[in-house]
């Protein structure tokens, strides 16, 4: 059902050398038979209905001369133009009316502000009128942003649904009041194998949204009112498109609820598990088995497992055992990879240059670049010069790898740092979300990707 390869970054490790790293690439690719299945999908849309969702963000509004006071904020009355909630409603309507969903795709809708409620429980996508009236109901709310309450409702809707491609899609425009609960709930989503797609617009907390998507193996998007540039940035007018894509992607996730079990011998420790293709996600290693998301039918899904390895004498020895379990929702089967031994040979005299697998190292590097960007945003306020330097390094490495979208996100940030000596909240979001964007596949020779001349042309050096 699932082709699995494990590739260590090097075949031999030096004996008697402390504090070594071993990277193992775990590559998953469903077999043809499984790839051709079409899982049912089960979606929970969590929509922020706080007062700020009524802000006009698109179109050409005309002032009416009246002012309103909502949630302690003053608003100028306008006609024409589109509010955030308008666009969300329009997007969901387009999805319902698209005709691309059938009765095996189920949708539920949860709103949250000070409170949360289920506007419609899991309903086949073919029940259009029922869904339509629930979507229209989104306009009847306002208040604060208690996202955790909404997540908790969504979890109860999805958690007992098995053998289906589940997903929670959160749309928010504010700082959640109950961040701690949100983070705890993310862990439960992960354990249940439900990826979260987090869409943020305006003053949301990007660290929280990235946490939700990282831990659950989902993804996060930065929604902007203007035209989008860079990775994982989406213009709000393209919201219908991105929501539709998420549903399509869920349909392609022929393997889901992947969990990884890793045991190591003494002196070996699993340090990090990162999905490095098709996009980046950093999983938490708090409790075995580790939930690591889903796998697409038509492409590889690749993870890098980073191990710390203590000094060992010359030997060929098992250092770890990996096991995987997963669902094949399209066939309603549960699969298991019997525990695989990771055997490493420790030999003398490998302290000089050793040959390594360039594909594995390529993914390790992409992972590291994302981390560099994260570090840069952290020091941006206290040390803009250092941040600029880190971003420059990240940008130029990105150019070499050929990740155009991510490069664009970095360009803007660097410009801003250079001019203003700090990163605005919006740019910070762009950069952070961008660093967790799509990665570049490494299996073809890097050297063939871009000639040095092309690289120079791109990087302007």
């Amino acid at each position, binding site marked *: *059902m*699932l*082709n699995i*390869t*494990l*590739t*260590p970054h090097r075949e*031999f490790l030096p004996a008697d050398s402390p*504090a070594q*790293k071993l990277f193992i690439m775990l590559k998953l690719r469903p*077999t043809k038979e499984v790839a051709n299945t079409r899982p049912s999908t089960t979606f929970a849309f969590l929509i922020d209905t706080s007062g700020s969702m009524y802000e006009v963000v698109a179109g050409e509004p005309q002032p009416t001369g009246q002012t309103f006071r909502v949630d302690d904020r003053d608003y100028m009355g306008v006609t024409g133009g589109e509010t955030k909630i308008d666009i969300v409603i329009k997007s969901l309507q387009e999805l319902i009316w698209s005709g691309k969903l059938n009765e095996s795709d189920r949708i539920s809708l949860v709103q949250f502000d000070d409170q949360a409620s289920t506007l419609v429980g899991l309903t086949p996508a073919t029940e259009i009128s029922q869904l339509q009236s629930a979507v229209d109901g989104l306009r009847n709310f306002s208040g604060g942003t208690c996202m955790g309450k909404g997540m908790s409702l969504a979890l109860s809707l999805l958690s007992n649904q098995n053998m289906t491609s589940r997903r929670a899609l959160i749309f928010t425009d504010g700082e959640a009041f109950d961040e701690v609960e949100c983070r705890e709930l993310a862990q439960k989503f992960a354990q249940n194998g439900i990826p979260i797609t987090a869409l943020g617009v305006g003053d949301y907390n990007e660290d929280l949204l990235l946490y939700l998507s990282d831990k659950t193996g989902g993804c996060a998007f930065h929604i902007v009112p203007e035209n989008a540039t860079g990775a994982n940035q989406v213009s709000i007018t393209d919201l219908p498109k991105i929501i539709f894509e998420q549903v399509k992607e869920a349909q392609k996730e022929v393997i889901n609820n992947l969990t990884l*079990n890793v*045991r*190591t*011998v*003494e002196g070996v420790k699993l340090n990090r598990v990162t999905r490095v293709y098709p996009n980046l996600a950093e999983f938490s290693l708090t409790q075995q088995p580790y939930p690591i998301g889903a796998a697409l039918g038509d492409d590889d899904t690749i993870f890098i497992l980073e191990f710390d390895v203590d000094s060992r004498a*010359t*030997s*060929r*020895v*098992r250092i770890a055992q990996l*096991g995987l*379990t997963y669902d094949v929702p399209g066939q309603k*089967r*549960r*699969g*298991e*990879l*019997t*525990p*695989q031994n990771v*055997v490493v*040979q420790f*030999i*003398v*005299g*490998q*302290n*000089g*240059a*050793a*040959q*390594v*697998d*360039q594909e594995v*190292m390529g993914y*390790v*590097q992409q992972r590291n*670049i994302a*981390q560099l960007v994260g*570090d840069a945003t952290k020091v941006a306020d206290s040390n803009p010069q250092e941040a600029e330097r*880190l971003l420059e*390094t990240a940008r*130029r*490495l990105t150019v*070499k790898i050929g990740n155009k979208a991510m490069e664009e996100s970095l360009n803007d940030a660097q410009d801003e740092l250079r001019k203003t000596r700090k990163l605005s909240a919006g740019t910070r979001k762009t950069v952070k979300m961008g660093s967790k964007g799509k990665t570049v596949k*490494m299996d073809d*020779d890097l*050297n063939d990707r871009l000639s040095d001349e092309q690289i120079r042309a791109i990087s302007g*050096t």
Partner: protein
Amino acid sequence: MQDLEEVKNSEFRIQNLDRTDLSIKEKECFCIGEFQVEVVAYLGLLTADVHYFKVKFQSFDSEPNIEQLGLLRAGSVGGSLNRELKLRETLGEYGMVAKLLAHTTVESVLINPPSALSELENYQEEQKQEATEFIISDREVIGATRLNSVDIDTNAEIIEKTVQNYQITPDNSDKICENNTTDEHSEYLEEEYYPEKEISSDESRQKLLLLSDFPAENTTLATWLEKKHSSEEYLSIAIQVCQFSSYLYQRQWCFIDLLPQLIEIGKPLKFFDLTTAYLVDESLSSGLVGDYCAPELSAAHHIQESMASYAVGALLYQCFNQQPLLSNQKLDIKIEPIPRIYQLLKISLSPIPEERFPLSQLLGLLVETRNLFRVKKIQWQVASNSTLGLSTNRLTNEDNYGVRQQQLSDSKNLIMGIVADGMGGMAQGEVASKIAVKTLLEEPIPQEFQEEELRANWLIELFQKANESIANTVKDGGTTLSTVLAMCDRLMVAHVGDSRIYLIRKGEIAQLSEDHSLVAMMVASGQITQEESLEHPDRNVLTKSLGSKRTLSDGYVQDLRRIKQELALTLEDGDILLLCSDGVWDLVSNNELAQIFANTSSLQSAVDATINQVLHEGASDNATLLALQCSIETAN
């Protein structure tokens, strides 16, 4: 090149030449070219495709029983060793490369074949019982077995997906998940050993063998790096490596990694292994990681100069951090905040290859940095005191003194201490000594000041100038003039008259000036003794002074050559220079001075204590004491 035929035909017939396989392992003997070789130890696969052995060898021609240690390397015919041969051809005889004694291609070589299959089985049995014990007790067997696994295949294809990846076919991987086979109770997996991997070596057993001398262990760069050294020494090593690397690069080769255990420290450094040099633009078929390898090498790149710069930077990093750069730090390295070293490392270790220095520029910067590190930082402490004294005949202090300090550049500073004791009636002496000090304080420092000769001439010119001014201004008056001039740690003196210049070093006092007085002359000619001179009535009569003659003849002004052969002496940390008029030394003996300065905590209180003693002893003359103490620190 010598081929197997030749080896076979040689007079020395060592065991396995009867067979077709040449087996290379510990204790085995065979011939390479005109050398008989016995393997002492296997060193490992130090370069990805080359096996390294320590051997004993002797030449057929040489006296029997003169055995030398050698380095034997075995690798595939088209691999790294072959590349090294090409490079050696390009370099010719080059002082930084250890000579190759012999090289040969052998048709069929077995590297460390297992002694016997049964031993391997024994070893597996034993290790199950007591893993640690087997490691210690069964070393030889490990040695024999481990090496099979890396039977060399030099086409840079050691990583071969089919061998290395664990392909799991769909059929046997899928099971309905009912029970987990892993044991959840223990925290760790059980240790499980496997027979060390054997890679079939059918492809080519043909090997290239290279023999050279073995670097003396206690002089290798690896051994050297284990100890702490001065910044200057670290830079000197990096400079030599950079020099070597640049030399190679001028010939289109890039030295992208180092094997410190095969580099001998000496004059110059000597490289025993060149397998880490590649032709510029050569493309690698597999990634490389190593302590000195640029990070982009891990994803297999075309060889570039920037990788060679990186290797030099990585060595410098290791020097200043006492450990090699770990691969997970390579994207954003943390560097000790040492000015210049910080910038050098940051730029040469940049993850962006284009940012790194070209080798020639790096070399220049390293040399410049070392020169700056060589410069010693000198700081001066100054203390002085002067008294009119208690004589009823004198109501003016005719002594004058001054200190001049100037920073000429970042690394050069200058200090001048001056004491002048004037003489003559009607306060003329005061004017004379003032003119002398003023002249020395105010004369601008010339541009050309580097050479000691020039500085000495400049001092004499100043004395001439002071002399002329005094002669023009003062009637019946004159002055002594004593000055010290220290440029960095080089000290010079210029002196006329009977004031004195002392150097106190580690408690010992030495007089650097001569007394230009009548009594001194009488002592020198034996007319009176040293003791008698102290009480001699004419002890104030001078034989030399400024202002008495229009021009000063050659040698009139005394310099250090009268005492030390050389124009200048090198100061040491803590040295104290004293300049005083005869009012001081008349009443305080040399030993007393040394004692006061040794036992008093601050320089100023020592000066004050001396002047106090002068007063207590009666102070029949003006007394002036100027003290300068230097502290010298070398950078780091």
